[in-house]
């Protein structure tokens, strides 16, 4: 497996390798195939997420997209982010979504009707137009694609990201931990409802 990834220019060579891995003739093709595979899966996952009427399927589509993007991260020499992506997104966030969907049961799926169709689809059409404009711009520059240069052997590793996180980015890092704490406390406070409500229910149970 590692060998394959090496061929795909996904993982840098062994730490003691003095020179970058030579590009094999079939390398670009392998790389494009890998990218295309992941990209198609990601788009399919995304469409499944937003389009499926059943939220469970949506969550599964989200999972598919997340894992495909993690694969793309690997191709981009971002091993640490790829790992985080799988652990946090696939492992925590999607599971959280699933929990909530299970909790709501059949109520999680909402019946569709035509109310508010004009603003919804109008806005979506405008947004799609904007996206098309952006893609057009991208397409006009695609003629001269920029090939990324070589990277150092430790680019994107846990080591180097960790160094940045705990030196230059220490303050944002600490603030993000505070943010998570606040989010957890806030989530609990919002989800459990008012004290009176609980006490009332308790009284009713008795």
């Amino acid at each position, binding site marked *: 497996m590692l060998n394959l990834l090496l061929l795909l220019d996904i993982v840098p060579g062994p730490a003691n390798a003095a020179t970058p891995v030579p590009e094999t003739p079939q390398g670009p093709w392998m790389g494009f195939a890998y990218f295309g595979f992941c990209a198609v899966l990601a788009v399919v996952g995304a469409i499944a997420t937003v389009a499926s009427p059943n939220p469970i399927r949506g969550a599964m589509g989200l999972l598919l997209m997340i894992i495909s993007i993690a694969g793309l991260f690997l191709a981009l020499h971002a091993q640490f982010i790829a790992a985080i992506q799988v652990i946090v997104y696939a492992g925590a966030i999607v599971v959280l979504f699933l929990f909530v969907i299970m909790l709501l049961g059949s109520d999680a799926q909402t019946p569709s009707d035509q109310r*508010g169709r004009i*603003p*919804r689809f*109008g*806005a979506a059409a*405008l*947004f799609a*137009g*904007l996206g098309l*404009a952006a893609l*057009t*711009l991208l397409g*006009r*520059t695609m003629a001269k694609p920029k090939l990324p240069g070589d990277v150092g052997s430790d680019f994107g590793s846990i080591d180097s990201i960790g160094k940045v996180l705990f030196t230059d980015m220490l303050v944002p890092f600490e603030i993000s931990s505070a943010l998570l704490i606040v989010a957890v406390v806030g989530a609990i406070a919002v989800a459990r409802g008012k004290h009176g409500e609980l006490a009332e229910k308790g009284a009713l149970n008795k």
Partner: protein
Amino acid sequence: MDSLLSVFPSKDFSLLGIILAAPLLGAFVNGVWGRRLGRDAVRLMAITAIAVSFGAALLTFLALDREVTHAGHGHVKLAWTAWDWLYTTGKSETQIPIALRFSVDALSGVMMLVITGVGLLIHIYASTYMWDDKSYWRFFCYLNLFVFSMLVLVLGDNMPLLFVGWEGVGLCSYLLIGFWYGKMANAAAGKKAFIANRIGDFGLICAMFLFVHYTGALDWNGIEAGSGSLVTVNEATQVHVWPIGGGQFTGFLKFLQPDSPITITAATAVGLALLLGATGKSAQIPLYVWLPDAMAGPTPVSALIHAATMVTAGIYLICRLNFVFVLAPGVMATVAVIGAATAFLAATIALVQNDIKKVLAYSTVSQLGFMFLGVGMGAFTAGFFHVFTHAFFKACLFLGAGSVIHGMHARIHDDDKAQDMRKMGGLRKYMPLTFWTFLISTAAIVGFPLTSGFFSKDEILFKTMTTELVHPDAERLGKKVTFVQSLWGARDPSHFYVPPAWLGTALYWVGIAAATMTAFYMSRVVILTFFGEFRGWKLGRPSQIDAHEAAAHDDAHGDDAHGDDDGEHHHEEDLTKPGYAPHESPRPMTIPLILLAVFAAFAGILNPGLLKHFGLPLPLEHWLEPLFEESVKVGVHAKEGAEHMELMCTAGAFGAFAVGVGLAYWVYVVQKGAPAKQWAEAAPKLYKLLLDKWRVDEAYEASVLSGVDALADTATSVDKGVVDGILARLTALLVAAFGTILRALQTGVVHVYAGMMVVGLAGLGWFFVMPHPDGHVVEKGSGDYSIVAAPGVGYGYIWAEDGAKKPEKEVFSGTAAFPLHVEPGNTKKVELKVRNAFGIVGTKTFEVTAPAKAAPAEVIEMGQNGHGS
């Protein structure tokens, strides 16, 4: 002392910081935590703060004395710069520093000692006097803050810092006059004092502006150094009075334009502005009206602020800036005349008042008038000496009056009645300490020979009689004119005004008259209060039933809690029932009285003007000489044969004392007050007029206040009609209508909000998709121009000059700037094509016209369009 100076060098004498910080700390602690601390802690804090300040002030004074001795004879200053405060820009862009800098010299040293010393005694007195007040902590917070502000005023080394202290004492005065704000009258009195002082402050601020402009400095040394430029013969550099500021009246107002503008020297303008400030703070005509009303505050406040310290700030200011005042003899004469007139007017009012504190208040106004008379006639030392002695005897008199009121409060709870001298009498027997200290202070104020007041008042009157004011720059300036001429005749700026020689003599006799009246009314106060029979209530053992009530009141009596409006209504006692006689005040109140009386009796030894012939030294005169020497030398001349007039003047002053006291004795003791009644009945209108204080308040009410009221009414109606009625309602209506429309958009549905966000986003996207051909023309001179196109993401440009061949293939490779040469008078057209990253092209045509003469190029934008590529 040398060791002290080694710790605190004279250039960085930070001990001043301790003098200032201690009362400020006291005010802070008492103000913030006082309510919780309890009375004992508040008292300890307040008195300790002032005691520390007094101790540091004593050390400072000793150090100053040592420095003076070291330096020989000269103006010595101990200074401390706390920090650089701010800078202001003077004439021709000079930076004038205003440092937070404090200094102490001979003058401020004496003031500092008086403030902290008398302040300490009055704090001790008040700690008992105010004991039962529920706002004890608030009182001492204000009182400490007052001492701090007064010290800032005195120790400040520049005008703005003095102004800070000046405003600080004004604030504290306002807060303390209205201390029992529950009573409407007290609150009104506080407001009156505050507003009268604000009018004076206007003068002080104007003086600061003039100092910045003319002397280019605001600190004392700088003002003194630059004071030469305050007097000029050049009309352009003088202060234009009419037209104000040297303007020109044109058009139909032309008739207002005089042939030559009326100008006064800057020294006169500054002097008048400072005088306005001084009359406000020191309660002189025309702004004296607030001081009698200020007696609504607690008695210790009257003693400290409205007798001993704050009201002398005006005299301090004039003494401090004596070198400015002597440059304008006309202003000096005005000071003296105002002082004499105030002394006389206030004395006439004091003759007939029945409220003991009111008499003392008018007496204070009158004595302040004496001080103004002294400094106005160039007798700075004498005037300041009167400040010094007056601080002791008037503080003692007020505290004595407080003690009497304290005693009367045993059974009379109404404020006005407890202070009414007609209810007193015979208190000598019941309050012996109060009586003796009061008597000694009265002796001082009426000029009983060899008491402090005798020496100081005698010195003022003697100097008034024997000096004349001259212009220091007489030789340089040219011709002198009389007063009338100076107003209407010669407007030649090189002419100057000098007061006539008879001014001093005339003012002397006014002063003698005021002194006679002073002797009379002060003797009247003593006789009515302490002699004869007690008239307050029936004396004797209270009956069994009343004893209970009396005991109940014994707890509350002396609380001075009259204005303490806690909803409790003081029911009046039946004064015909017998009750215990008033009794002497407790020791913390009598000890300050005794100390002040001692000073009132013996402080004259510091400057016994008359006794110098017997070989006694004049320490105060010698001490203050370096400050006033120069000014007195140039601005004041002794008349011919002045030495010989000394005995005559003293005889006059003594005569005033003898006549006044003798008359009072005859009227109120021998004849039992009968002549007073006869006189009042003989001239009822005059009596009523005096009793109503010359109806000055009513006159102000009718003239100034009604004018202001009318203005306020007009403004109110405009505000209600135009601003509220039209403007406010119209805008409100507009907003409401707009809101009604917008409310429809607020559906509460998240999707609609998100859709609106997308609409905004689309607008932004449109902006980026469309090219923006735009630019501006930069003139390079001599017919060269450059058109600079606005930048944008991925923009490419093509420039085409009018008439130039269009290239076969459009290549958007041009630079953002296009150089252009246009001959004068010609016009050239340039077309700009812009292509953005989306490949959309926009066009714009510039037309550049070079003017025949040197004028900015005219650019006409011909039109603009965009088309897809």
